[in-house]
């Protein structure tokens, strides 16, 4: 076993018992990144100096005999749309290629306080718009289980880094599945918290009414430790909330789990369906009640999402204007800038990639005069219906089980020519964001890979994720059920 294989609790124990130092651990990760990330391309920036400095501080505390917290010395990675002060933050876009974060995101501040070590920033789709990292302006991350396949997205760099042991855990952001879908494709745990459970201050915005930051981790226990460290109300994000959850233990004999019949229709990979059904059957054998439920408006979630997200994104991305920060043509003599409008047009033309332009235009169109009622307002009303579907379901059941994505990791380039087919990868995750609910994706099996396996990462199969959806602020129930699954079913 290598140092980089350890879980958070194992590292904590090792540090306290002085089996290894924080610096040794940090170096082990940095060396592994140096060796293996050339092929995987998880990291956009590696913050080696900062990481070594932070690790040394933890070792000093330990040698002074001071108490350290559970997360002290744990090496983590951040999706490159989360600000880490004085470090480049690109959001996967040319327009922010040279942008240095002027402050820490609240989640970063919280992790720094715990003594977490920051290894670097991971590759996302540009402004988190995508499901494969293929929309990153810099490069595409590869899936550690098969390098000819995508890691999922948009938090693909984070998911691949966790899966390949290039960090102990990572943070990502999830607007329509961007934590859960890559977690599913890479065979790790990924939580999208309840909307408002984690502060969004310092997260580069995509769609503000849906975005949430959450952990990607090797185990459910690790994900829970990280979530507990980053959650809570923050005066700098007025949509953040305090979670008042008293500790309790779930009784699995009385637990009722719903399975939406609308999620098992056409378009689903047969093998994925079998694996999900097998996992549910095992739960039943352990005495958990599983019953079919209906979420009748499911088919409208994706079209609804593709009005709301581009609309909000077009407004959020108006700030990249070549004036305040980010890429600017203002001083480029060959750009022949005549007036203010030229600065906007030319800076944005050079700075934004295809998918970003597509969504800005779509969103601007949907919000433009005469179309607002037909598109954005209608979508917000459909959002109400989707939310009510879940509320009604939760009158009958405690949790909902669903596949995370209809297929395992797809091939690089397979969906880049057809934006709509890429969007369909998020069909089971998007409704959860629209309803503001918490959900985790945990590995529940592997489908056979028809391509030759890679000896280094073993198995040769492609992971499949089970999605566990809870009521608002039901993270505790989700974690306990996921832990139960890890222990008894896997």
């Amino acid at each position, binding site marked *: 076993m290598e140092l980089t294989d350890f879980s958070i609790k194992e590292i904590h124990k090792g540090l306290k018992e002085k089996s290894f130092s924080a610096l040794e651990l940090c170096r082990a990760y940095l060396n592994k990144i140096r060796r293996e990330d050339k092929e995987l391309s998880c990291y956009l920036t590696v913050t080696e100096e900062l990481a070594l400095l932070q690790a040394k501080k933890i070792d000093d505390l330990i040698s002074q005999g001071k108490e350290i917290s559970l997360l002290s010395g744990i090496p983590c990675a951040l999706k490159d749309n989360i600000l880490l002060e004085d470090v480049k933050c690109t959001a996967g876009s040319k327009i922010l290629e040279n942008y240095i974060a002027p402050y820490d995101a609240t989640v970063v501040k919280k992790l720094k306080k715990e003594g977490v070590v920051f290894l670097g920033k991971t590759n996302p789709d540009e402004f988190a718009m995508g499901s494969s990292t293929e929309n990153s302006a810099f490069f595409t991350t590869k899936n550690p289980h098969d390098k000819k396949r995508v890691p999922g997205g948009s938090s693909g760099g984070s998911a691949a880094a966790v899966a390949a042991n290039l960090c102990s855990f990572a943070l990502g952001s999830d607007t329509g599945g961007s934590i859960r879908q890559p977690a599913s494709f890479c065979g790790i745990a990924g939580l999208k918290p309840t909307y408002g459970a984690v502060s969004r201050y310092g997260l580069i915005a995509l769609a503000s009414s849906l975005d949430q930051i959450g952990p990607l981790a090797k185990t459910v226990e690790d994900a829970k430790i990280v979530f507990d460290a980053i959650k809570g109300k923050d*005066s700098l994000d007025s949509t953040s909330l305090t979670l008042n959850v008293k500790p309790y233990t779930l009784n699995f004999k009385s637990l009722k789990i719903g399975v939406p019949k609308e999620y098992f229709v056409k378009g689903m990979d047969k093998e994925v369906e079998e694996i999900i059904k097998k996992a549910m059957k095992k739960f039943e054998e352990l005495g958990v009640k599983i019953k079919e439920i209906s979420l009748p408006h499911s088919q409208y979630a994706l079209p609804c999402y593709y009005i709301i997200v581009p609309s909000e994104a077009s407004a959020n991305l108006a700030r990249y204007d070549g004036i*305040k920060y980010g890429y600017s043509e203002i001083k480029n003599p060959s750009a022949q800038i005549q007036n*203010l409008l030229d*600065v906007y047009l030319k800076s944005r033309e050079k700075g934004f990639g295809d998918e970003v332009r597509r969504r*800005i235009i779509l969103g601007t169109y949907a919000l433009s005069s005469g179309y607002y009622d037909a598109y954005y307002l209608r979508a917000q009303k459909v959002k109400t219906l989707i939310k009510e579907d879940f509320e009604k379901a939760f009158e009958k059941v405690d949790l909902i089980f669903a596949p995370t994505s209809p297929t395992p990791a797809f091939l690089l380039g397979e969906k880049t020519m057809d934006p709509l087919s890429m969007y369909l990868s998020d069909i089971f995750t998007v409704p959860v964001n629209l309803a503001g609910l918490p959900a985790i994706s945990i590995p529940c099996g592997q489908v056979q890979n028809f391509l030759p396996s890679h000896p280094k990462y073993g198995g040769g199969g492609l992971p499949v994720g089970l999605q566990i959806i809870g009521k608002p602020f039901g993270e505790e129930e989700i974690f306990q059920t996921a832990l139960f699954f890890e222990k008894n079913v896997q």
Partner: protein
Amino acid sequence: MISKEEVKHTAKLARLSLSEKEIKKMQKELSFILDYIEKLKEIDVSDVKPTSHSIEMENVWRKDELNLELKTKNKKLLDLSPETKDGYLKVKSILE
């Protein structure tokens, strides 16, 4: 199908310049996505209230106090701009 003029007009509103080739591509792709979105018209939403944020909240207030920590960041923020003058962002004049 969304017209070429509509794409051009929308791009202007969004402050994005598009090449002729891109306008054509965008016309095709947007029409595809808009057709897909049309699906929402199947539902009768006349009696449904819109939801903006899915987790309901009351208004959130804070005291109007000077935050010195944020104030010290001013220079750092201004340094990110390509052109500044006397502590302000500089832009091209918009009035003749």
